[in-house]
């Protein structure tokens, strides 16, 4: 039993930390700290910086351009990126489609798409969810019908994150309507410029534009855009759901959030003294911090086990459940700490003289509401409990 990093890992951490200090532009970390929506430019610029260093596709095998890191190194890298307030890497091309193509794609698909993902030539988005098929993916209805050398796609996808920026979308489509629910689904790549595609924004609870609906009307794409075997898309979907789950605890983001809450509670006066000296508020912080300290170890334990076994087990659902609960609690505390100063709708107070505090706090209420999503998407916490019931408890 040894919780400390090896000397090599510490050297690696120092290297990453130094690199970030040198290469992460300040306007980017500032934008991340302030908590508003990031622009497409910031995200693309940061991708390009990491790609030049060879640190973009951290989970790809070396042969495809990954850095060849161990799970612990990947974890350290993620932690350091959070610590430095680096922009999040948009996951759809790098963390989702990339591994899928590497495992299920043809040589031609790999050769064409993977370098373009690294270069930032293609911005990918995900076409999984549909109205009426959220956590219950198997009931999806979007049809793809073969017509000679083409697929003809009709249907609707929803919750398409950052689809407004996307060049390509990877979709699950029903290709055999006679087959049972999870059979007869195929995984197909679609160029967003194809005629018949319409993207409509979904305004979220806090007013932001992050997700979209995507409508397909007689959209024709080459048959060769199929990934893997026809009607075997469910295998790919399942692979993606269990692949690379250790990041789902969001420990780095919670550590950010904890630091923010503490800083805020030191600056805010309540009843004439710093809020952090208020026993009720301090006890809320302390409970969250303790849960987070435990979660750090839980996360490392599962990382270690995944490293030993080659793949994460079903117990990683614990990371999703508890990780989101902790993060949401911290976001709640940030909003609470501001009190009435959290009430203004973001964007209304732009006059420096009228601001309520540091710019980082302007989005606190918005972030609290937006983050309610984390216990819903990627398999809601209820679905995660169902998974644990079956796999860990065998009930």
């Amino acid at each position, binding site marked *: 039993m040894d919780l400390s990093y090896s000397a090599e890992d510490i050297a690696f951490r120092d290297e990453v930390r130094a690199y970030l200090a040198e290469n992460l532009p300040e306007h980017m970390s500032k934008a991340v700290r302030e908590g508003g929506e990031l622009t497409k430019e910031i995200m693309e610029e940061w991708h390009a910086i990491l790609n030049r260093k060879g640190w973009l596709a951290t989970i790809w095998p070396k042969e495809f351009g990954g850095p060849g890191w161990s799970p612990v190194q990947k974890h350290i890298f993620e932690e350091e990126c959070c610590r430095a307030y680096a922009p999040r890497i948009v996951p759809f091309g790098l963390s989702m489609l990339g591994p899928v193509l590497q495992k299920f794609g043809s040589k031609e698909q790999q050769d064409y798409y993977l370098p373009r993902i690294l270069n930032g030539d293609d911005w990918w988005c995900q076409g999984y*969810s549909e109205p*009426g098929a*959220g*956590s*219950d993916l198997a*009931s999806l209805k979007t049809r793809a019908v073969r017509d000679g050398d083409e697929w003809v796609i009709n249907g609707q996808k*929803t*919750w398409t994150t950052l689809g407004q920026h996307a060049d390509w979308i990877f979709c699950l489509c029903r290709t055999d309507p006679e087959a049972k629910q999870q059979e007869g689904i195929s995984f197909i790549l679609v160029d967003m410029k194809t005629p018949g595609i319409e993207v409509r924004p*979904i*305004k*979220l*609870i*806090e*007013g932001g534009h992050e997700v979209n609906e995507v409508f397909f009307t007689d959209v024709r794409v080459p048959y060769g855009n199929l990934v893997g075997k026809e009607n075997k898309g469910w295998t790919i979907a399942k692979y993606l759901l269990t692949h690379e789950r250790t990041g789902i605890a969001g420990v780095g983001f919670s550590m950010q959030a904890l630091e923010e809450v503490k800083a805020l509670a030191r600056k805010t*006066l*309540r*009843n*004439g003294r710093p809020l952090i000296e*208020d026993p*009720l*508020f301090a006890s*809320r912080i302390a409970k969250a911090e303790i849960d987070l300290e435990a979660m750090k170890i839980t996360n490392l334990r599962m990382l270690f086990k995944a490293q030993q076994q080659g793949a994460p087990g079903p117990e990683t659902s614990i990371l999703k459940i508890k990780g989101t609960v902790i993060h949401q609690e911290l976001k*709640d505390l940030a*909003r*609470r700490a*501001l*009190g*009435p*100063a*959290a*009430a*203004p*709708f*973001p964007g*209304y*107070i732009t*006059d420096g003289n*009228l601001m*309520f*505090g540091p710019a980082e706090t302007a989005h606190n*209420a*918005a972030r*609290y*509401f937006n983050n*309610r*999503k984390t*216990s*819903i*998407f990627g398999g*809601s*916490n*209820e679905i995660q*409990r169902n998974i644990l019931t079956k796999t860990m408890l065998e009930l």
Partner: protein
Amino acid sequence: MDFNLTEDRQMLADTLNRFLADQYPVEHRNKVAYDAPYHDPKLWDALVELGTLYALAPEEAGGMGGTGFDISVVFEALGRQITPEPILGALMASRLLTAAGADQDALLSGASKYAVAFTELDAAYDLDQIATTATAKGDAYTLSGRKSTVYGGQVADIFLVAAKLNGKLALFKVAAADANVTGYALMDGAGAAELLLDDTPAALLLADATAAMQDAIDAGIVALCAEAVGAMDVTHAITVDYLKQRKQFGIAIGKFQVLQHRAVDMLTEIEQSRSIVIKAAAELGGDDASRYASMAKNLIGRSARLIAEEAVQMHGGIAMTWEYPVSHYAKRLVMLDAQLGDTDYHLARVMDGYKAA
């Protein structure tokens, strides 16, 4: 003992509920709540017409109500449609004007909109921390300081402002035209304002205003808590309805026992919330008003967050969208915690009572 509403109050409740449901569908509400002036002037007039403001003041002040139960009936109805009209300010101002023995015809007739400016950046909830100062100039006064998140301040004609005068908290009347007012929308809809005072002329209403301010806050808490009960009722009803309609894995999600029990727990907390509002309303104006107001605000702070978060979670993605009403109810339910003292602030006030005893 009688838990039925009087006939008059039942009629007022029915009238308001019918009127708001009819004239104020949620799409319209969302439009006016986020577009300047962050409320609907026509609706304001119509609510005034229906006697809403008169219900908030006692007869001796020119009104027709003014008890805790009058207040809770009005605000529960407003809460059911998450109405962003600046009526809370009118209620609190009316209490203050009554305490000062000042005329409030313009307020009750809806001719002048009032806002109450207690809060400051470093005095979110606690009257002791108010730092705005008043200076006497002959018979007149001027005020200096910043009042923050003044609810309804974006459309107020008159502000009732708390400021320090000779070491005491005093209450002043400031015309919006004389002050530097910046209005803005709120996260949960409706508007507020920052009020910058810099030797701003003001009229003294009460030289020692602490008791009157506390009464206005207690009344405001009854109002907010009743509003929350109305909003929770609707949120719960929409959620239960959704559980019946929405299918997953081929069956209505309302058949999943986990969601059933959680919906029951929401119901339980709503009933408890309704009860504590009844108690706080009954005690309003009495010796223990502040104690029960604190109890109500604490319990509502806990239950409203639970109902908001559970309603969103049990809906899933749909309730994360602007288009679906529950998102707006959730925002209101969560954000009202930061008005007039939050969950922790009021819990601490209840605890303070233990030391004294």
